[in-house]
């Protein structure tokens, strides 16, 4: 340690010993030796959010709580008085929180605020959440970090839209402790009947969400009724005051006793050492523990738990941000989750989730999204929307087909497919690793919790591993299909020249491609130019042409691709041979049926005319037979419907067959 040049003229000197760090001369800053016993006796600070419909008095309640508990700093009241005078209003407690000029001018809360505050028993951070629908994202921001909530309902106005939506979001965000305040009792003449009416109606609603409030309290925040002391104006109410209810919230830590989840934030390669920086989201880790990292399943042993300027300890507990060095050189990166071997995380590229959506633009199937789950990040898409719920009525919203979407402020159950495999837990088990944020742009557009399902779980028997592409051993058809989230298969179009095979095939390929499928069109032209160059149109050559096309299609299907073929393929035996080399349900024979007369009139390449003149020998339908399929999977009458209609019919038919894990009987 070196000291800078001394300044003997300085009148400012250290008023106390600088401890062991003091050099003999020169400037010395104030410093005491570390004392890790300091503040261990400080009480925990509980985060409590105040939610409810707009104008039901959230900011006023908090202002009143600050006032009644003597938590306001000198000058604060005067400052608010000045602001109120400027707006021509009587004293407004809400201005203690609504600090933005725009908030004061419009007398609304725009963004969430958090202020420290304490009762005689405990420290709190009290979070004010806005009640306007358009600021719901700010309500979510405020509520997500809370352990408990006060939900306000205006006794005069009764239960409104946000009274319900906020409760639904609290349940989704995992804020389990709730006290309902029936506010503005002064406007309801402090009447017990009105209070009971609201309690009954709202309790019934909360039951359907699985929420049970600890208390209902009648209050008039503006006048302080039942806030810090029991009000003489509600003699019929004998329950706790708001302050008593606040002190009654539990400071719940249910993560320490859960299995270990160490989330890797970064890898630091400093001083010839490689350490994995991250946080213990749940459980405990000790030096010497065997750790398995998901996704992927690489294992190693914790060599050391690294910290700087902290007491040496050989273990780390829930909530700690530490760095681990490992005994083995294994590839671990940001996003990996370290667990103990016997209590692994789920791993999948597909899962069901309950989500909320707070962005203006609608969420649609197939839209490119990014998911962030703890420190994991992956591109993803919604592949199906199973249920949409109006968060204010809990009734199901019915939307299907092309109109399927989740609108702003709705809650839905959807299935996601991710580009990379994710490691996760399911809701109800370990909260931090069971929830994720959805990004459709720069900022989170929504969030969700993962619903239970038959996922592969590392370290557990009986998990469904088929949707994991990195599973040990060979990469199989199943692993490829799992990554693509659809089967590899052959859609075999057969029919006369001019029946419309190429038109249908081209459009089908386009439609499947834009919906995110791996798809490839094999047709007579691209086959005959390369692989089948040299083959003519004799029966033998035609059979060989189809045999080779079939084998090529099989290879592509094996690679997980949906292969569309468009060959006349006139002989039934040739088509049956292709069917026989593919697994069951991986060959779809599509008969493009148009009468030869119709095909002749279409004759896009002038081939029928040339065949009739004898210029082309063995032309199917003219000088060579066409053996129509007896039992095709589907027949499209292209003389009766347009090409687009035919493609729609085909897509409709294919839809269930493009799903994985379908009952093979379909």
């Amino acid at each position: 340690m070196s000291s800078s040049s001394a300044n003997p003229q300085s009148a400012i000197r250290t008023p106390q010993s600088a401890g062991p760090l003091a050099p003999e001369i020169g400037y010395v800053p104030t410093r005491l030796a570390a004392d890790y016993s300091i503040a261990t006796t400080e009480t925990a600070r509980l985060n409590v959010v105040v939610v409810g419909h707009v104008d039901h008095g959230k900011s006023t309640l908090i202002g009143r709580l600050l006032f009644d508990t003597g938590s306001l700093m000198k000058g604060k009241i005067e400052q608010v008085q000045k602001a109120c005078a400027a707006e021509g209003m009587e004293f407004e407690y809400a201005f203690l929180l609504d600090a933005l000029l725009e908030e004061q001018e419009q007398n609304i809360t725009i963004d969430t605020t958090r202020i420290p505050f304490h009762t005689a028993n405990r420290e709190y951070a009290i979070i004010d959440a806005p009640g306007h629908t358009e600021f719901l994202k700010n309500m979510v921001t405020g509520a997500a970090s809370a352990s408990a909530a006060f939900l306000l309902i205006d006794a005069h106005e009764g239960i409104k839209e946000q009274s319900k939506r906020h409760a639904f979001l609290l349940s989704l965000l995992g804020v389990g402790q709730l006290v309902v305040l029936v506010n503005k009792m002064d406007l309801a003449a402090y009447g017990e009947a009105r209070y009971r009416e609201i309690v009954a109606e709202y309790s019934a609603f909360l039951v359907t969400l699985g929420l049970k409030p600890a208390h209902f309290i009648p209050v008039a925040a503006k006048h302080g009724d039942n806030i810090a002391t029991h009000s003489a104006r509600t003699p019929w109410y004998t329950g706790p005051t708001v302050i008593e209810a606040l002190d009654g919230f539990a400071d719940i830590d249910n993560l320490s006793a859960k299995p270990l989840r160490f989330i890797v934030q970064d890898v630091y390669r400093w001083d010839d050492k490689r350490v994995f920086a991250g946080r213990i989201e749940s459980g405990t880790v000790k030096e010497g523990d065997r750790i398995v990292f998901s996704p992927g399943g690489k294992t190693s042993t914790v060599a050391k738990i690294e910290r700087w300027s902290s007491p040496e300890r050989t273990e780390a507990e829930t909530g700690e941000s530490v760095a681990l060095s490992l005994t083995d050189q294994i590839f671990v990166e940001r996003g990996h989750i370290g667990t103990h071997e016997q209590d692994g995380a789920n791993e999948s590229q597909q899962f069901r989730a309950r989500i909320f959506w707070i962005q203006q633009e609608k969420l649609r199937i197939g839209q490119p999204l990014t998911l962030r789950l703890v420190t994991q990040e992956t591109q993803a898409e919604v592949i199906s929307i199973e249920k949409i719920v109006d968060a204010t009525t809990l009734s199901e919203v019915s939307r299907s087909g092309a109109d399927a979407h989740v609108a702003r402020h709705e809650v839905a159950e959807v299935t996601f497919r991710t580009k990379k495999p994710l490691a996760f837990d399911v809701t109800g088990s370990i909260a931090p690793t069971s929830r994720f944020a959805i990004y459709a742009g720069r900022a989170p557009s929504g969030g969700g919790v993962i619903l239970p399902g038959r996922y592969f779980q590392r370290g557990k028997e009986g998990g469904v591993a088929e949707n994991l592409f990195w599973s040990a051993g060979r990469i199989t058809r199943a692993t490829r299909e799992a990554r693509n989230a659809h089967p590899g298969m052959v859609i075999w179009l057969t029919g006369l020249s001019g029946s419309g095979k190429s038109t249908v095939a081209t459009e089908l390929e386009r439609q499947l491609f834009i919906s995110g499928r791996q798809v490839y069109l094999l047709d007579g032209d691209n086959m005959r130019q390369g692989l089948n160059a040299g083959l003519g149109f004799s029966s033998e050559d035609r059979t060989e042409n189809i045999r080779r096309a079939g084998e090529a299609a099989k290879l592509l299907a094996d690679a997980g691709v949906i292969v569309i073929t468009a060959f006349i393929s006139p002989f039934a035996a040739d088509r049956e041979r292709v069917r026989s080399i593919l697994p069951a349900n991986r060959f779809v024979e599509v008969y493009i049926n148009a009468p030869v007369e119709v095909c002749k009139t279409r004759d896009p390449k002038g081939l029928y005319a040339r065949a009739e003149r004898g210029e082309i020998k063995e032309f199917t339908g003219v000088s060579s037979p066409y053996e129509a399929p007896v039992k095709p999977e589907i027949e499209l009458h292209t003389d009766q419907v347009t090409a687009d209609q035919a493609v729609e019919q085909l897509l409709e038919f294919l839809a269930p067959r493009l799903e994985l894990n379908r009952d093979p009987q379909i």
Partner: protein
Amino acid sequence: MDHLTKLEQQSIFIFREAYNSFDSIVMPWSMGKDSNVLIWLAKKAFLGRVPFPLLHIDTTYEFPEMYQFREWATKFHNVEVKVGINEDARKRGIGYETHDPVTVTHELKTLALQRALAEGKWQALITGIRRDEDPTRAKERYFSPRNKDNEWNYKDQPPEFWNQFATHVGPGENVRVQPILDWTELDIWLYIRREGIPIPSLYFAREGKRYRSLGCWPITHPVESNAATVDEIIEELRHTKTSERSGRAQDHAERNAMQKLRAKGFF
């Protein structure tokens, strides 16, 4: 886990998220108590080092001790320090002797910062602001985006939940990362005491007065206090009814002065 450790561990988490998210980071350093705690937390996060430069916006009106402290602490913490001064404004004669505090603060702090940022092109700034200092700071996020003009769009902040942050920065933009947002003034002092973090001595009472918050000397006033040790300061803060920034004149120049200053880029 005790309350102080919980705050410390969350701050370390934020530091590490920022370091992973951005290519270039700078940490403004006023040398006040909060920014010294910030250095300490960075060293906790990065195992004894600060892997990005510090930036001192020198208004040229710092207390003399602060310059001494800067020299000492630069060596002690082994940090790279850049200094930003709005020389142009000084040449134009902008100063507390002749101008009002809001103008001088804007010129010598906000504009000096903007120039340094334009030059350094950092994607992220790690700031030491806390919610309990001011009601507009209470509405901040851990990761708070600023546009090309360093403006804070407080009317439309990105949602922030479950430790997922707005980490996207466009060209010319930056993100303010605020790891001690949830700390209170008391937490800061408890932590300084627990960890033994070096700080300037101006915070300690002499002759019945001490500085609770440090800024430019012409507009920073001491408060009445006999708290001459860290323990006495902690005891004082448990009972005070005076706000921390009451001695900072620029905050009180007009209604919503802080909001106006902050919307333009002030911390």
